[in-house]
């Protein structure tokens, strides 16, 4: 049909009316309020947890005086602001640093919180990124483990199947040498959609439904060099915990991982994901040295700050000690160096849950491939494991007490 013949109104005659504007502004306010209300409802669950940091000692006030120094060459581009494709243009050490920053690192469990659990295979923790027809896995320190074709979206140069060129995926995996399988422990990005902001519960759901669709769980082939697999996730009630602890899996277990099901993917160390292990579910309860032997004394890696303070990798960092300026100069150390220490017989002493004193003995600089200092919770876990370990019975007891305390569905439950 021909366009309507209505007369063009003179733009000089346009009446002043903001009625439509008032309606739109009202709609805008309503949409905004609706969003707020729904968001509040969503947050209620996580605020009820009001997570006690795994170690109550690590209250921020402890290290208020030590403002963390920005890392040279990195802070100019905050890692969080780069997406994976921008990051793919980074080169050399930059790219290693970017990837190292993207992993969510569990805190070590030294006290029993509420959470979720899943098995934690032994192997190399890595990021697997598929994009532009290839797949790359990178270790925790950012260095490349494998470069290979995979059935992940965008993971191989095949027609069709892998989807549009811009689709890329980032998975948080553990590469298990003995069966040459990538065990996917989390999904960060799928077909270009970021899942950073989604809860753990949702990510596991998505992971399980999407991964099998792609055929990535199938046996290796020309276009799919390594098999992918998911790890079993259990509800953290009594039976779930028991299954996770005793259940047989095709890989060598290295502890249990507890997720808070409402947690978003969080780069760096987070109290919303906790790792726990004992002799039964891990060969490596107590850290070994490079020769695979358990040293007599606990080793820790700390980062040197330019005021001589020795700190953990936490944000904010926890101060474990201090080196005097002469020693720093003499040993040719510089700010940012990662240093290895052993904990002497003086041990760690805590007063009111706060670290008071650490008997540190300097061993030397660490291997260059290492990206981070130890986290506070890791050090504490190792220390407790050597002295008074947290046992599976303690965890089970806590789960039972939760089951009986809350007859209705508990706000915080371990799930999977």
């Amino acid at each position: 049909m021909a366009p309507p013949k209505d007369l063009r109104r003179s733009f000089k005659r346009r009446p002043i009316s903001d009625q439509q504007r008032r309606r739109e502004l009202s709609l805008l306010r309503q949409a905004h309020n609706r969003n707020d209300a729904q968001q509040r409802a969503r947050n209620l669950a996580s605020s009820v947890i009001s997570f006690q940091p795994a170690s109550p000692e690590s209250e921020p006030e402890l290290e208020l005086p030590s403002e963390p120094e920005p890392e040279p060459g990195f802070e100019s581009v905050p890692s969080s602001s780069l997406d994976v494709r921008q990051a793919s243009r980074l080169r050399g050490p930059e790219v290693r640093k970017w990837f190292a920053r993207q992993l969510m690192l569990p805190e070590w469990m030294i006290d029993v919180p509420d959470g979720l659990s899943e098995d934690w295979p032994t192997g190399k923790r890595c990021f697997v990124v598929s994009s532009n027809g290839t797949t790359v896995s990178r270790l925790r320190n950012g260095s490349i483990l494998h470069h290979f074709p995979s059935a992940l979206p965008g993971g191989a140069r095949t027609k069709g199947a892998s989807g549009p060129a811009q689709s890329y995926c980032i998975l948080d995996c553990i590469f298990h040498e003995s069966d040459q399988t990538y065990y996917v422990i989390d999904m960060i990005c799928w077909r270009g959609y970021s899942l950073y902001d989604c809860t753990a519960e949702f990510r596991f759901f998505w992971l399980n439904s999407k991964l099998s669709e792609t055929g990535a769980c199938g046996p290796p082939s020309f276009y799919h060099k390594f098999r992918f697999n998911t790890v079993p996730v259990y509800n953290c009630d009594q039976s779930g915990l028991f299954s996770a602890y005793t259940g047989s899996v095709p890989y060598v277990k290295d502890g249990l991982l507890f997720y808070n099901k409402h947690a978003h993917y969080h780069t760096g160390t987070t109290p919303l994901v906790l790792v726990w292990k004992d002799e039964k579910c891990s060969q490596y309860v107590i850290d070994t040295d490079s020769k695979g032997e358990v040293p007599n004394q606990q080793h820790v890696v700390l980062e040197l700050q330019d005021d001589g303070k020795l700190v953990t990798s936490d944000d904010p960092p926890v101060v474990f000690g201090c080196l005097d300026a002469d020693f720093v100069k003499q040993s040719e150390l510089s700010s940012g160096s990662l240093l290895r220490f052993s904990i002497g017989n003086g041990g760690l002493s805590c007063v009111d849950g706060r670290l008071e004193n650490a008997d540190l003995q300097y061993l030397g600089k660490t291997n260059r491939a290492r990206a981070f200092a130890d986290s506070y919770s890791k050090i504490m876990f190792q220390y407790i494991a050597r002295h008074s370990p947290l046992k599976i019975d303690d965890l089970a007891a806590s789960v039972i007490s939760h089951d009986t305390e809350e007859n209705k569905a508990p706000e915080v439950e371990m799930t999977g």
Partner: protein
Amino acid sequence: MAMEITQFLLAAQSADARVRTDAEGSLRQFQEQNLPQFLVSLSFELANSEKPAESRRLAGILLKNSLDAKDAAMKDHLVKQWITIDTAIKSQIKDLLLRTIGSSAPEARHTSAQVIAKVASIEIPLKQWPELIGSLLNNMTQQGSPAPLKQSTLETLGYVCEEISHQDLVQDEVNSVLTAVVQGMNQSENNAEVRLAATRALYNALEFAQTNFENEMERNYIMKVVCETALAKEAEIRQAAFECLVSIASTYYEVLEPYMETLFQLTSNAVKGDEENVALQAIEFWSSICDEEIELQEFDNPDSGDSSPPHSSFIEKALPHLVPMLLETLLKQEEDQDQGDDAWNIAMAGGTCLGLVARTVGDAIVPLVMPFVEENIRKPNWRSREAATYAFGSVIEGPTVDKLAPMVSAGLEFLLSATKDENNHVRDTTAWTLSRIFEFLHSPASGFSVISPENLPKVMAVLVEAINDVPNVAEKVCGAVYNLAQGYEDAGASSSLLSPYLTEIIKHLLAAAERTDGADSKLRSAAYETLNEVVRCSNLVESSNIIAQLLPVIMTKLGQTMELQVVSTEDCEKQADIQASLCGVLQVIIQKLSSTDETKPVIMQNADQIMVLFLRVFGCHRSSVHEEAMLAIGALAYATGPEFAKYMSELFKYLQMGLQNFEEYQVCAITVGVVGDICRALDDKILPFCDQIMALLIQNLQSEALHRSVKPPIFSCFGDIALAIGAHFERYVAPALQIMQGAAQVCAQMDTSDEELMDYANQLRRSIFEAYSGILQGFKDEKAELMLPYAQHLLQFIELVSRDAQRDESVTKAAVAAMGDLADALGHNTKPRSS
């Protein structure tokens, strides 16, 4: 067969109300008892040349009304009704109609042409009247067809083309129709009536001619005939031909190049010398070309790396001739053009076109317009001064700020003084030009403004004084103040610049709103709308006292409207109008003051009285709920929070009325939004009202009579209610979810090529996800398992939506949120289902 109904048809037009009502009743009874017979009888009446003109006329109207209605639901009903009528009876009716277009009575011919088109609009898409086009064309080709038959046949063809879509005809039919129509325009063979009908038919058939316009020979032929017709000696035919050219300009822009020189000559001559109606169409031709080029420019992808313009640049090429032609039109003002609301004349059309040209070519227009401005703006003749000012104001949008800023800065002083020109028209246009300058060249938020702290005092003094000018000028001045204030919205520290003048501006705006010397209510409404913008854009910290003082003033005024004498419907409309303006101001004040904790108490202290006023406004109007009052109530609920509960018992019946107002669907939509506001304010205290609210909302969703734009807000409102009442939503789950699933299915079946429909689909999907989110969140603490049976559907819906490439980002966000809420609420229950 056919009943004798002439008497009833005549009686139904009787001056005697009793006779009329009786006859109408009889006709309605006949229609209800035997529709096919009723329609046949009407067709006989219309076809019978021995019947009186009056009964034939009404028969035609009743026939038309049995096939088409303005209301979409009603139309749908009529179409279905027609389809079910026996084929033999329909054939009989159609034969009678086709016979009538050969009648000797022009009115009966005209009416049957319209009715045929209505039948065609139903049957041609269904391929149920394949012989129509052939039999019409036969009238045209048959040797010795009388001219009246040809004329009515062409008219019928035009109406049919207007009713159907070009996909409904095969190309052969299109070719024959176009051939018949274009031949009908031939001057040597046909009389004026036939040519006029043919030219008007071509206007409707142009849309069908795509294939023909692609063929150079056919296109040349059509263009030649149209251009010849544009020179016909009958003005009416020339006007119709120019209307065709306007339509061709927008439909076939891409192929116009070879004809542009001819078209420029034709239009230019018409603009300069033809009768006004023809000249207006000639100007419209250029406005349409501008529309096309502006649209192409806006959709042009600047990344394509191609520096050539996205169109043929007809405007740019014609610029040196086009601009002087348009400037000349500006001098043809009418004496009283600023009085009437819908005055439209050559000067206005020319100015409007000049504004479009400026938007099309940008900077290039400035050197062509400025000499005219400079030459005329000080002339003793008011027409010269007004035209110069109008020209200046017209080119304010389009050219770059860099180009405009120096000349506007230089001219501002002059314009300010021209607000005191002796001539009303000049002052009117001056105020309008100032308003345009503030709209486009005053944006402190983005770093540029022709207003500086130095000239602001002068500007304000001039504006405040000019608000007292005659009503038409005062209204334009309000526009200038509106745009001036708008510039300071979100302007950070700059918004303080306005603060010292607030009291004075408000005082003058209130005075202007009170004036009674205007012929209509335009000044009052402009003054209040401007007041709104001034309040909205003010710096709250510095102006909170002033706004707090304004509040009781507006409340008093609103209270006074209840005392107005209301006798006639006109009085009632006037009262509603003033109340609308005042409720609007109250809404803006409530929203402004409740935005900070420091100023919110002002609203809380006055909430009771404000609410009483709104309820009284509702009470003034029996038939409908006052839209602006409802909108303001939403803002009040947000401001007062849980306190709002005490108003519910009084307010509730108006909420119900609003929710049932399908006719004014905006009112219904606003009421739905207000229900959401109240849910958030009251939380579970809304519970006692929920049964009735939910019943109405579900009823609304099921109704075909309710405008579709209201439906998405209703789904969102489900979410609001569920979130407010939590587990109590249980009783509504089954019906609510059923209807959500139904709507999700409708989304899946929508025509994805229709942009407007996809827009709607996106709104609908987002709102369904919002409903899911609210319900899942509301249930998650105690009754999450109730949602288990619906989880599968939600997941399927999410999957379906995720496969659609056209969904917009807000839909994705809502889908992801709903999915997260599903996982959150159902927790471990989701797991086994997905693995």
